[in-house]
């Protein structure tokens, strides 16, 4: 048969954001494939050099649309390291609450995302409806639903609004109560199992070869490698949680880890709400008004565990008001860009959307 070129996305229910996969197929087998991240989120790193340390808050969240908070935290922590700045205790706990809420929201979105390519729209609507509740909580805390611009160098912008704990607990309880239902709808549903079991593999060797982290790695190498455990930040060393992992990295096992993480995040947030102390939530990074804040000369790498793996900022400061250079390690870069080229070929056309979804590909963090 003759090889044919086929575009998956950007207009496709199984595609994420503005990314698309260009595939050359023979029958329904993909022969060659390339990811086109969309070129919509180009130039962020360069843009950061043109904004002051504080003003970058308007730009950095955009490096990952669905989980913007990881950017804010990695950026803030990096600058804090260069500054030698001690963040107020309460801010650490608030940051953790935000991070875990964000993890829930993106896991729900990704899990609901398998509804698109599998035709299981019930799952998608319900997962998004739950994610919507999280966005409501974010809106109350930060004033915005998606780009929170909330975690800043020195802490967080504002304290939690009064009574938000109640809303968070309420949401966590309802999500927990629906957990089994979610499993039923998706991962334990025979028609979906057929699509995800023993397929779209991400073997150990590929993990090592490409540098995949996060769930992709954990579910392949049988090790709970998680930045929150191996390089704890905020107060992750003061809460109890487990890191799900497995030794068989097919699509189902990755989704399974993802779902189990939802339970862990629920538990972390609950612990945070108990342990969070009172106190201030932000310290100014130095004297003066924010446009004249400077960060000492030096370079730093700071990383957080995103829903897709290790997400890091490498930052260089020349002692000025703006970062001199910022490099973002997007967690899905290895599997998203290189993996699509090298390991998607050989799978079937209808596997491609599942490939993208279960690998956790986020185009802005590839584009940057």
């Amino acid at each position, binding site marked *: 048969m003759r090889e044919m070129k086929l575009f998956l996305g950007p207009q496709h229910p199984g595609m994420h954001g503005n990314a698309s996969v260009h595939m050359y197929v023979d029958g329904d087998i993909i022969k060659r494939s390339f990811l086109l991240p969309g070129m919509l989120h180009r130039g962020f790193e360069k843009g950061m050099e043109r904004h002051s340390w504080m*003003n970058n808050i308007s730009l950095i969240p955009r490096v990952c649309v669905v989980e913007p908070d990881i950017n804010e935290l990695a950026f803030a922590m990096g600058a804090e390291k260069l500054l030698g700045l001690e963040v107020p205790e309460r801010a650490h706990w608030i940051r953790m609450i935000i991070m875990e809420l964000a993890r829930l929201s993106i896991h729900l979105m990704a899990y609901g995302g398998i509804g698109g390519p599998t035709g299981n729209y019930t799952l998608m609507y319900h997962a998004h409806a739950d994610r919507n509740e999280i966005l409501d909580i974010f809106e109350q805390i930060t004033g915005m639903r998606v780009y929170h611009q909330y975690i800043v160098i020195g802490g967080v912008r*504002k304290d939690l609004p009064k009574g938000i704990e109640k809303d968070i607990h309420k949401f966590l309880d309802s999500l927990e109560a629906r957990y089994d239902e979610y499993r039923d709808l998706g991962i334990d*549903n025979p028609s979906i199992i057929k699509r995800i079991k023993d397929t779209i593999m991400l073997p150990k060797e590929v993990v090592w070869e490409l540098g995949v982290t996060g769930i992709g790695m954990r579910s392949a190498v049988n090790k709970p490698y998680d930045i929150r455990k191996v390089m704890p930040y905020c107060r992750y060393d003061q809460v109890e949680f487990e890191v799900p992992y497995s030794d068989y990295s097919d699509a189902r096992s990755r989704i399974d880890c993802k779902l189990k993480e939802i339970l862990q995040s629920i538990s972390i947030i609950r612990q945070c709400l108990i342990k969070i102390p009172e106190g201030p939530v932000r310290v100014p990074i130095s*004297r003066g008004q*924010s446009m004249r804040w400077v960060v000492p000369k030096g370079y730093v790498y700071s990383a957080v565990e995103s829903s897709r793996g290790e997400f890091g900022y490498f930052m260089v400061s020349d002692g000025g008001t703006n970062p001199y250079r910022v490099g973002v390690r997007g967690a899905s870069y290895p599997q998203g860009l290189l993996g699509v080229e090298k390991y998607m070929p050989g799978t079937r056309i209808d596997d491609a959307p599942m490939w993208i979804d279960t690998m956790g590909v986020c185009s802005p963090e590839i584009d940057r």
Partner: protein
Amino acid sequence: MKDNENKRYKHASIFGPMRHFKYIFKKPVTHPFKIIFTRKNASYLNDNAIIKNKKRLDSAPRTAPDNLRGFHTNDWEVCIGCGTCADICPTDAIRMVERADLKDEAGKLQQRPVIDYGRCCFCALCVDTCTTESLKMSKEYIYASTDPDQFLLMPEKTWQGEKVEQGYVKTEESDLLDLKRIPMEHIEPDERKKSFIEVVRGYSKEYARQEAARCVECGICTSSCPVQMHIPDYIKAIWEDDIEGGLRQIYETNPLPGVCGRVCTHNCETACAIAVRGEAIAIRWLKRYIIDSAPDDMYDKIFAEPVTEVIDAKIAIAGSGPSSLSAAYYLRALGYTVDVFEEKDRPGGVASYGAPQYRIPDYAVEKDINFIKKIGVNIKTNTRVGTDITLDELQKKYDAVFLGTGFFKARMLNIPGADHKDVIGAMDFLPLARDLARGHLKLDEMNVLPSAVVVGGGDVAFDVARNLTRIQIMKYGKANVLLTSLESRDILPASLDEFVEGGEEAVKMELGFGPQEIMIKNGKVKGLKVWKCLSVFDEAGRFNPKFDETQEQVFEADQVYLSIGQAPDYDYIPESMKDKVIIERGKIKANEVGQVAGQEWLFVGGDIFRGPDIITGVADGHRAAQGIDEFLYKKSKKKEQSEYYKELREAIHFNTPVLAMKPKRK
């Protein structure tokens, strides 16, 4: 968790998918269109006919949370037009737009922000940095229009003409300004009372840079400065650690920065944007920091080319106070020959003989004057215009004459006993105190007795009281000085610094009393009899004190010092000219630049023209220099035309101090 759970799902029932059917009977989780609107938004869209299906507008409004970063509101009464919001905006969405219909007040600019909602990302940095907290966000977040121009909006107190609920506002935590001043170190009162050591120590480099970092570069201060110093520019230079740049900026508008950096009345700080909610930037101390840190040879870089005579005209200047020195500096910079005549043995006028040594030490005055001399201004000391050289002679020998002779006579009180030798006027005492401080007089040459009452409520009264405290301690080991003024604490004209520091130095204060009689017994002053003062001004705002005679008191003292104002001495104006120069309430009448009507060669400035403070004198000098230049430049035959001089001349004329002082910000 580690086992491969996949194995457990081998035999899922083929009826499994059936379980989805139950969702048919569940309540939908999607939000209907109508509830994403607030009612206001819905009707707004309705008006604009953007939504065709009106049924949808029958909405159950969704209330946004309190923190929502929605469309901005800006209270114009509170907003000062500083433009800080525009500076911080990371998307460059804010433009400041001139609004001539706004009142022109000191401390406010006639402009307000316009936001381009095609660019705004609702980050609220503008809200968090707003100097006045006038800029806030509302809970409104939907707006639509088919016309792109409609997205340029000037936030007002209302949104689309209606009162709306408040969303995101700045809190103490989210504030991006630094409202607290870097503390200035002062010598401890017990220490400084014993000598004339300078009280204020000045900022270190680190502190100056931190203080400079607080400035938002709005320039509101500039329009309140009598010479319109380029304040944000030199503050920025400090922050960038560019002393040379700062020095150059300063010398564009003020040739006496060492003096002004210490004793200026700092109108700028009253107007400073940061002062709306916090402590004003220490503009005066920052200026002083530049001067203190600038080495002498750095001054050579102020003028790119050496200053020389390039215009063949000569100007004489009578007096060497701030206005005279300022006129001399600018005239010299323009290329004239300038001779300054000073009756005392030091130039500087009030800076050298009025202000106390502990405020402005000689070396600081000298630093300013040395530069003025260095560019070629001739200062002839011990030469009194009127006696050593007459005004007529000056008129003949020079092409123009500037008078800046100041108010150096003490005003006395017309009450019984006021002619006693131990009743001393401030302006008779202060020059002596200054000479004592610089070692030109000996302690026992000073007629200072162990206790004194100082009458007056201005800065000069405090200068007298605090000088006296020092001299009494030097002479008798302890001080006993009481300051009494007509004005009560709330309307005391003296600056807060003086009031606080005077108090620290144990100057006693009895405020709100009017002197009635100097009590004299056996030829010696025994004290001052006063009545309680009920009010200082009458309803029309005129000075017309009212006393309560029943509340009489005597403040015991060996001496009484009067600091109730200064007066000029016009002895040097010859009889022949007396009728040509109009003097009103002690001041000479002249046009805006100080040119005396009918005597176009004669210019005046400083206390004898406008007063009341040093910086206004400096402004007078600058304006007079321009006036003199206008008058002489055209007439002179020889004049340099190089590009450099043209630029210099332009700059000096460009930086003209604007006259009209605006009413203070409420």
